[in-house]
């Protein structure tokens, strides 16, 4: 396809992906409702961190959860079913290239994330007096790296497992990260033997870097390197192993 035509096609595909995501009740539940409910619950219940303002701890974790819900759960499950139902095969017979499809999916994920971030930041600001500080551009970069990492993981599942297994796997990993990924429960509240392992997870790396960037505009190097490594490795593995049919 010629570049101008390709841009038009990517735009149309991206629009389709966004519309269909918002049309699926379960996607809206996991990407929009669940993060907002968790944010409101933990911010109101005051079960969590002592010292500092709770919302400054909670909001970055919720944003990390939002990234995971869209790029791992929603994207992974939708893509698995597209593979299962032959949508990917059908698209493969058209001139629209695979690279275009991947670009459209990434743009669609970014679009959903913008909606999530706006809603979560809005809820935090209006109800819990959250105020933005730290570095906004750096936060966007970190959210982008997190998206790459978790989209890679979602597509590894979608491209190699049956649709039902991806559905179960993505939801399972989501809960796993929710509990021990440092999103809401600080790692030092976990059993000691679990901490070194949890620290290596992309979920903890993302929430840790996001927290630091949004509060101090600084990158904590160890977590940042971990996040960067996942953001590089997982998409490469996805691209190498993805089975289109």
């Amino acid at each position, binding site marked *: 396809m010629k570049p101008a035509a390709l841009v038009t096609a990517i735009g*149309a595909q991206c629009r*389709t992906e966004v519309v269909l995501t918002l049309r699926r009740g379960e996607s809206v539940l996991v990407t929009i409702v669940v993060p907002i409910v968790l944010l409101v619950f933990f911010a109101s219940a005051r079960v969590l961190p002592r010292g500092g303002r709770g919302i400054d701890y909670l909001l970055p974790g919720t944003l990390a959860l939002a990234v995971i819900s869209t790029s791992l759960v929603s994207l992974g499950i939708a893509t698995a079913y597209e593979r299962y*139902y032959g*949508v990917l095969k*059908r698209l493969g*017979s058209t*001139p629209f*290239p695979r690279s275009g499809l991947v670009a459209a999916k990434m743009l669609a994920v970014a679009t959903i994330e913008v909606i999530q971030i706006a809603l979560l930041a809005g809820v935090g600001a209006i109800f819990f007096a959250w105020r933005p500080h730290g570095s906004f551009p750096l936060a966007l970069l970190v959210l982008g790296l997190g998206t790459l990492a978790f989209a890679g993981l979602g597509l590894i599942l979608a491209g190699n497992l049956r649709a039902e297994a991806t559905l179960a796997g993505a939801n399972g990993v989501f809960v796993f990260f929710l509990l021990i990924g440092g999103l809401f429960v600080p790692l030092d509240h976990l059993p000691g033997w679990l901490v070194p392992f949890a620290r290596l997870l992309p979920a903890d790396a993302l929430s840790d870097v996001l927290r630091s960037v949004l509060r101090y505009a600084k990158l904590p190097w160890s977590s940042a390197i971990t996040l960067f490594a996942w953001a590089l490795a997982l998409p490469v593995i996805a691209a190498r192993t993805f089975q289109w049919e």
Partner: protein
Amino acid sequence: MSDADPAIQVDGLVKRYGSRAVVDALSFEVQRGEIFALLGPNGAGKSTTVEILEGYRERDEGTVRVLGLDPIGEAGRLKPRIGVMLQSGGLYLTMTPREAVRLFATFYLHPNDPDEMLTLVGLDEAAGTRYRRLSGGQKQRLSLALALIGRPELLFLDEATAGMDPQARRVTWNLIRSLRDSGVTVLLTTHYLEEAERLADRVAIIDAGRLIKIGTPSDLAGVDTGGVRLRTAMPVDLEVLRDLPAAAKVHQNGDGLIELETGNAPQLLVEITERLRDVDVPILELRVGSGSLEELFLRLTGEGLRE
């Protein structure tokens, strides 16, 4: 390449899964502007052959040219010129036909008008219905509209009318004929003998990955003669039928259909109707020619269909 080249050239094509050859030294050519049918039972290698031509699968041996191009090596130049209708599925469940044709139109340089395509396949009223709520026949017709949206020179239809009711099938046949008349080449696979006979300009019969016979439908029709099929409203003693002078061989299928071989079909028809009138057995179905792929295979290969 020029327009004088054949639309499809297949020469010595071999495809193996493990050690089993599902396509075995297959050769044929499809000319521009013809409807060409690959006819064979399930598992004959039809879909595998078509998927190699569409660029979905690698071949193990042989050469394949589609519109003069290599389906995999030159896919970027081939795909804008072909239309593909898959056997089933292939769409987002929550998408509507109107959204689907509009999306697919953006993939081509000079697409047909999306709404006209829906009208053409008779999906106007279902244009806003989500895919998962469409009937099987409606899904097939949407798939056909998507295959046509890019104004293809060559159209692949893999079991296109499977699951359609007889009326939808006839509408689809007419649509395919009018495409041929406007210069489109059509390669279709089917396991319906009737579809191949009534729709195709030429038919290749394949079984176990091998070409068994290639020719026009009338070439094939000459093979399919000499049988009478009978279905009665109540059980009939086969000995009564075997006694008929014009009946050579009589046997009954598991589903109650009785097949009679004969050298003189008109005479046998008279004898059957008279005999059954005498014993007061009503006739549900009586026809000449087997019409079945199984019978045709039996005559062509001397053996039944492999399971």
